[in-house]
């Protein structure tokens, strides 16, 4: 479907205003510590702002079904990436214990010399 629809300037300005309100809101709210809700609140506000940009600045409100399906699919796939990977990390919460003790990592030019290989035995391990 074509969009011969010209979005009125008033709409753009209203959306811009809303985005500014959202920005002020997210900064104000961030002054307070709601613990684990912090991220949720920030993401909610950001999502609303993004939705406004998508619907009106990017004209999706007036666009074809195909466009909407493409966007929906993208968001769905992004969600798969995050959610399914998180399922692994939710259970392995302590994967980082004992790590992060920063010794000097082996830099690329300081490898140990390649071990002498022997022809007589099958090599074990990588």
């Amino acid at each position, binding site marked *: *479907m074509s969009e011969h629809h010209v979005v009125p300037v008033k709409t753009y300005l209203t959306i811009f205003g809303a985005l500014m309100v959202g920005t002020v809101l997210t*900064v104000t709210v*961030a*002054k307070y510590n709601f613990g684990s809700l912090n991220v949720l609140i920030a993401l909610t506000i950001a999502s609303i702002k993004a939705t406004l940009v998508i619907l009106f600045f990017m004209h999706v409100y007036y666009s074809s079904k195909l466009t909407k399906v493409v966007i929906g699919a993208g968001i769905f796939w992004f969600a798969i990436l*995050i959610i399914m990977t998180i399922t692994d*990390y939710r259970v392995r919460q302590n994967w980082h214990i004992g790590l992060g003790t920063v010794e000097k990592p082996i830099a690329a030019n300081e490898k140990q010399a390649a071990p002498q290989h022997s022809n007589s035995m099958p090599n074990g391990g990588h």
Partner: protein
Amino acid sequence: MSEHAEHVPGLAHHFATMEQQKEAGTVGMWVFLVTELMFFGGLFLVYTIFRSTYPEGFEYGSFLLSVPLGLTNTVVLILSSLTMAMGVHSAQTGKQGALQFYLVVTLLLCLAFLGIKSIEYTTKVKDHLFPAYTTYNPVTKEADPTNTHAVPTKIKSEVRTFLWIYFLMTGLHAFHMIVGAGMLVALIWMARKGRFNEHYNSPIEIGGLYWHFVDIVWIFLFPLLYLSGYHLNSGH
């Protein structure tokens, strides 16, 4: 019965109608933006995992970033989205002068954003906070309690994790803005040649889609990177 279309200005030979060409271009740009979403998505995944693993480091690392500068950049970018949308509107209503004006303003706002970003980056480097292994050497909080760029020793490495995620995400975003700037220059040049009007303006619209996407990424980056530690300002 086929009829060879009389040469419609701007209609490529393999499309039957302008309608089809415009639809193809628009769908094509949206599909491209979906690939960009998945591209940035990998970094958002990385952010999610490391933030939930090192919450303190992220809080403090975020506290090290300048909210005023980040906020300014946010306003600048959202404003540039408005001017880009106004540019599309001007093209759709055939206002050549306004079109060029809005495109130039968008470009200037883009450059302003990049300028502020480079100030932020150079500040980090100066404070020995650039997180490559050889350059990360922050002043510790224990050594200099009053220094606003000092880092508590306990979370030094966690803050470093935050910082490289910050640099990767904002760096990739800035790269996309540079590409966007190039695109704007191309559009301005074509607009000056009078290529766009009420009937043919899809490059502006499609370019606008890209621009708004870059804005949306920042809309998420700002709170996630800059505001996570903002509450530390008051009574940490």
